């Protein structure tokens, strides 16, 4: 049954007739980390009128001839159990951290490690944005990487990128990493 389904839907995918390749990217992180702001920054939209996400947002961005479908799912505690429903067929996980919210570093680390253990994310590359670098109290990306034990990840590619989603600084660097390490490999 499972195999039949996969077959059917892989065929349906082919049916779409789009020659363009698509990437499914899931954007996760604690509440108030700046996921939606980052998403809007990626889509070159206004980032000044953003409210806490109760559900999820989707934007499609073209990057080096590839269509990136970015799913931004709300990060509030009560919504987090729903994350795993969005992980299937994911090509890349983007995890956003509020670099100035030191009190919740532990919490965000726990959430990330849970995601890494998810069956659906097995081997899926991770890009971590150390967001809010425009704030004076923000911790540097290297410090955060150490706290998250990123160097212990052996089963996948990973990258940590300092950025400010509000100003857009560093965001493009992250996207470049995506195109260099994932898009080019997929092609």
């Amino acid at each position, binding site marked *: 049954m499972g195999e039949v389904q996969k077959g*059917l839907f892989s065929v349906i995918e082919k*049916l779409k*007739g789009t020659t363009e390749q698509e990437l499914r990217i899931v954007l996760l992180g604690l509440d108030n980390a700046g996921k939606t702001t980052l998403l809007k920054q990626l889509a070159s939209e206004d980032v000044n009128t953003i409210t806490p996400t*109760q559900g999820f947002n989707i934007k499609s961005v073209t990057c080096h001839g590839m269509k990136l479908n970015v799913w931004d799912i709300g990060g509030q505690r009560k919504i987090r159990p729903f994350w795993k429903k969005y992980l299937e067929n994911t090509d890349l996980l983007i995890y956003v951290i509020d670099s100035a919210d030191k009190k919740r570093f532990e919490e965000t680390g726990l959430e990330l490690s849970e995601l890494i253990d998810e069956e659906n994310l097995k081997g899926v590359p991770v890009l971590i944005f150390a967001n809010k670098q425009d704030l004076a109290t923000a911790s540097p990306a290297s410090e955060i990487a150490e706290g998250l034990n990123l160097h212990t990840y052996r089963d996948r590619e990973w990258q940590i990128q300092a950025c400010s989603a509000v100003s857009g600084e560093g965001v493009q660097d992250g996207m470049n990493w995506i195109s260099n390490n994932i898009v080019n490999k997929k092609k």
Partner: protein
Amino acid sequence: MAEDSEWVVESIAGYLGSPEWVIPVTDFMEHKCSVFDDEEENKLTYTEIHQQYKQLVEKLLESYMQEVGISEQQFVEACSSPFAKSKTLQTLFQPVLATDDFQMFRSLMVQKNVELQLQALRVIKERNGALPECLTDGVDVMSELEQREMQILQEVLKRSKEEYELEMARREQFEEAVGSTSACFHERPLRNGIGPQAPARATVPPSNGLSNINGTSSKKEGKAGDLKSTVPGSTEQTPGKISDKPSEKGTKTLPAVRAPVKGSASQPVPKEKISNQAAESWLEEARKEAGISKPFKELSVAQQEQLQQRAEYLRQQRDKLQAMKKEQKAKPVSAEEPLAAPTPTPATQEISVEEKKKLQKRKHLAEKLKEEVIKK
């Protein structure tokens, strides 16, 4: 092999147009679409519903493929053939593609929701005649309603004017026939501005032998007046009720038209009493009208003659009025019916004439044939 895949694609395309597919899929969409709005942010329930949709489509497609005997291999080959990627098939396959494409699914659901909402609005409009105020915030809707209201008002006014003019024309015919004109005929109907019976009442002051007629005619007038004042009035209060149901309006006018006829049922009663009494009252009436205060017998011959003439005129008028009422009694229904009624009769006559002609022709033909056959 290419033919084979074409057959498979055609078969699936056929299935996607069949009720076995369309009904459950549409059903699902109609049931689940209510939460789908066009807000930018998606609700978490969208995903759940999308998942359910996937399962439904899977189940349907699989059972169909099993039933028809399309193997998965065939399906894969068929779908990768260029034939499957044509424009028409792409739109037909849209509900299937929506299983894999959340954005497409979402837009289908939002569209369905809007459709249903519009449908609901239409139903509300049809049922209540108008949308409740809370649902009409657009100026367009209001002006549309107002326009319709105005149309009905104009129609009502037009009809009452036609009625009035018809009546006036009749009156004028009378007056020309009798040769005497009295100012009150022109004045009073105008002043009253109401229905056809107003002049009749005007000529007959109360407290004489004709008080019965008078009574009925004033009743008529009252009802006619009521009709005209209530119809526009009610359109103001509940515009839709009338504006949407012209038939209802039609029935509303019916009693008003019929009422005078019923009222005139009391007509024959005075008729019996009338003979002597009435003749006196005609004279009395004429005398009063002429502004002569002395009793009839004390008047000069010329004056008496004048009054006799006047009395004669009034009598004629009364007879005509009664004749008219009889006419109305014969055709008691709405004003439209007398117009419609006469047409069928000549039509049937025409038909019978035509039929006669046809029959004659046939007879002629038959006779000719007979002759030919016999001759041979």
